[in-house]
């Protein structure tokens, strides 16, 4: 299959390309960018006039709910949602049922994803057996099976000695750890950011110190062990400052923010909207401003969807009983574009946060349109606005706090390994 994508605005943050031109895909890789390969005969030409041609998006956190949680969603529906959102590579957290703590489970998941032949799925392995926080998993075996990193998903590690040893072990092999900064005790019964809104609404609060204490611990341990750590889903201004200082010091630290936290604050809980129940919680407008600035100045490397489909039964309940999480694969691009236009961030910078930067964190060859790279492309119309409605979402999870809102950015075509896997007409 020889695909030619012509007349589009090619934006490739990894190589610094941002100009109108054509790209050529053959044999599953990028055969040329703006340089027609010799003897080229296109099987198909895609006219990308007025559209942006970007690398396929890379999402460091998308829950596919398989194995075990199929009542919430399935691989089919969620991967379909991914490519509808232009996401061609995604990492899924280990909190499946059973958790991804054995090579066999990892292989099965990869096999399932491969057989769907749509988006590329990169499992993140469990750091401890059963995610129970007591004994280490066979990280080397799991890496061989295909894990790109190790994490505890949302479950805080209580045993700091274990965390320290896990870091030393991972550092031995150069495995990265992806960790959430959550203190296991402070705010453990909380369901919302500990601030004015939680006070008014009578919701148990999760104070910022629950995040900063854990983050400070992680930073100190990184300093001691030299392990590469990617901090997942920071949510507060103070955390941004801590990461900034750690990076200035030269520590091997990276971090991400969920796209929701760039747009929403605890005010958006409104009258107890369960779709606004997220982990980490939506914090104050001041925190949101700091997160937005953090992404703009590069302190925060990656923006992700933190996709977590939840079925209606678990959301149409009182706020405190609702399962936390929001569906996000189909909103990653539009919400990133929205943030970028509001903040005056150039398109290439914004796209870097969801292409080249996450690919780097994941250590996979993705998120770039360089010659020879895998032919994973996302062609989108940055000026097409669409309304976020249940019927418009392919994910089985219709749980999003953005329901009813109009967002910019419609994916017209998604290509994985040189094959068109998703197309939509204007």
């Amino acid at each position: 299959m020889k695909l030619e994508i012509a007349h589009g605005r090619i934006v490739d943050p990894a190589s610094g390309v941002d100009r109108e031109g054509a790209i050529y895909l053959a044999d599953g890789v990028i055969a040329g960018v703006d340089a027609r390969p010799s003897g080229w005969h296109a099987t198909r030409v895609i006219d990308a006039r007025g559209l942006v041609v970007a690398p396929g998006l890379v999402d460091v956190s998308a829950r596919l709910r398989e194995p075990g949680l199929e009542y919430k969603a399935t691989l089919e529906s969620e991967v379909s949602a991914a490519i509808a959102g232009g996401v061609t590579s995604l990492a899924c957290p280990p909190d499946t049922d059973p958790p991804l703590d054995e090579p066999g489970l990892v292989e099965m998941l990869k096999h399932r994803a491969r057989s769907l032949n749509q988006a590329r799925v990169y499992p993140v392995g469990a750091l401890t057996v059963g995610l129970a926080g007591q004994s280490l998993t066979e990280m080397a075996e799991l890496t061989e099976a295909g894990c790109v990193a190790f994490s505890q998903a949302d479950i805080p590690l209580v045993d700091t000695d274990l965390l320290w040893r896990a870091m030393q072990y991972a550092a031995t092999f150069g495995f990265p750890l992806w960790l959430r900064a959550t203190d296991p005790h402070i705010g453990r019964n909380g369901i919302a950011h500990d601030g004015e809104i939680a006070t008014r609404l009578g919701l148990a609060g999760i104070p910022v110190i629950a995040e900063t204490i854990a983050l400070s611990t992680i930073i100190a341990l990184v300093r001691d062990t030299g392990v590469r750590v990617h901090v997942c889903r920071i949510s507060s201004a103070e955390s941004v400052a801590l990461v900034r200082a750690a990076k200035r010091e030269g520590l091997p630290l990276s971090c991400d923010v969920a796209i929701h936290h760039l747009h929403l604050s605890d005010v958006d809980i409104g009258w107890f909207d369960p779709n606004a129940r997220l982990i980490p919680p939506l914090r104050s407008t001041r925190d949101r401003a700091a997160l937005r600035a953090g992404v703009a100045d590069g302190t925060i490397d990656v923006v992700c969807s933190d996709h977590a489909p939840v079925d209606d039964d678990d959301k149409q309940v009182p706020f405190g009983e609702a399962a936390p999480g929001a569906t996000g694969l189909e909103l990653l691009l539009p919400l990133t574009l929205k943030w970028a236009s509001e903040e005056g961030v150039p398109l290439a910078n914004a796209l870097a946060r969801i292409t080249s930067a996450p690919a780097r964190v994941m250590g996979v060859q993705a998120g770039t349109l360089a010659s020879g790279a895998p032919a994973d492309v996302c062609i989108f119309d940055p000026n097409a606005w669409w309304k976020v409605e249940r019927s418009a979402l392919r994910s089985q999870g219709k749980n999003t706090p953005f329901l009813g809102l109009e967002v910019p950015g419609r994916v017209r075509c998604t290509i994985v390994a040189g094959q068109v896997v998703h197309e939509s007409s204007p």
Partner: protein
Amino acid sequence: MRNPQLNANGALTHLLTLEGLPADVIRNILDTADPFVSIGEREVKKVPLLRGKAVFNLFFENSTRTRTTFEIAAKRLSADVINLNIGASSTSKGETLLDTIDNLVAMDADIFVVRHSQSGAPHLIAQHLCGQGRSHVHVVNAGDGRHAHPTQGLLDLYTIRHYKKDFHNLTVAIVGDVLHSRVARSLIHGLTTLGTPEVRVIGTRTLMPSHVEAMGVRVFTDMREGLRGCDVVVMLRLQSERMKGALLPSAGEFFKNYGLTQDKLALAKPDAIVMHPGPMNRGVEIDSPVADGERAVILPQVTFGIAVRMAVMSMIASAA
């Protein structure tokens, strides 16, 4: 977002929280409660206002006291009352909250009086009913988690108005576990909305919600300082669970520093009134001489509570 308590004509159709209720709506409720007080003094304590209407008491959290006052209020309005005591566990095992509501609506419920341990449960129900277009079914929040207890707030306001007449020159102190108190939150909203110039909260830092000043109150950790010059002292109930864990060491230490005794009360104005939502823990938040003394208006609060609930139910049932 439009206030879900008011219908399109600005009439009160649900009572979910005092927060965001316009002052004249609150005053209207208090005024409507006036004539209902006298009905309790009659031989036949009934008026036919809600005849033929069904009031369902949906208590997901046990409370014989509150449920009883709502039952009395509904019966005095000639309504039919059905009591459903649904323990929290049975909902999690079986029907969802909204399924329970749908079933009861099918049984021609007109008013749901809901008490739930989760903040926001009555809002969820009201939004669900609104989404189904059922404008003739109304919700009264009888207490949701630590969020709101609007009828308690209203009866507290009624009591204060009865004894003190004008809110505009009052200093009111609320003492105790504000963090967990829906009574405190509702009263604070009511007082600030009606123009009370100084609302104080008094307690340990562990019992204060974060950013509580944003609700328009002054925080005191020293009870003597906080009671100085007060016109109204509202003592909150301290639940025994708070003594376990990290919030408080003991009831004794709490009583010593935050219990209301005669000598502490003497720091308030000589004609200050003492209120308590009940039930009281004598010797923990309040001592017997004060509870039984002449400044305590705790029993009148109960009487006013029935009248206020009658007013609320008849107003929402007649919302046009």
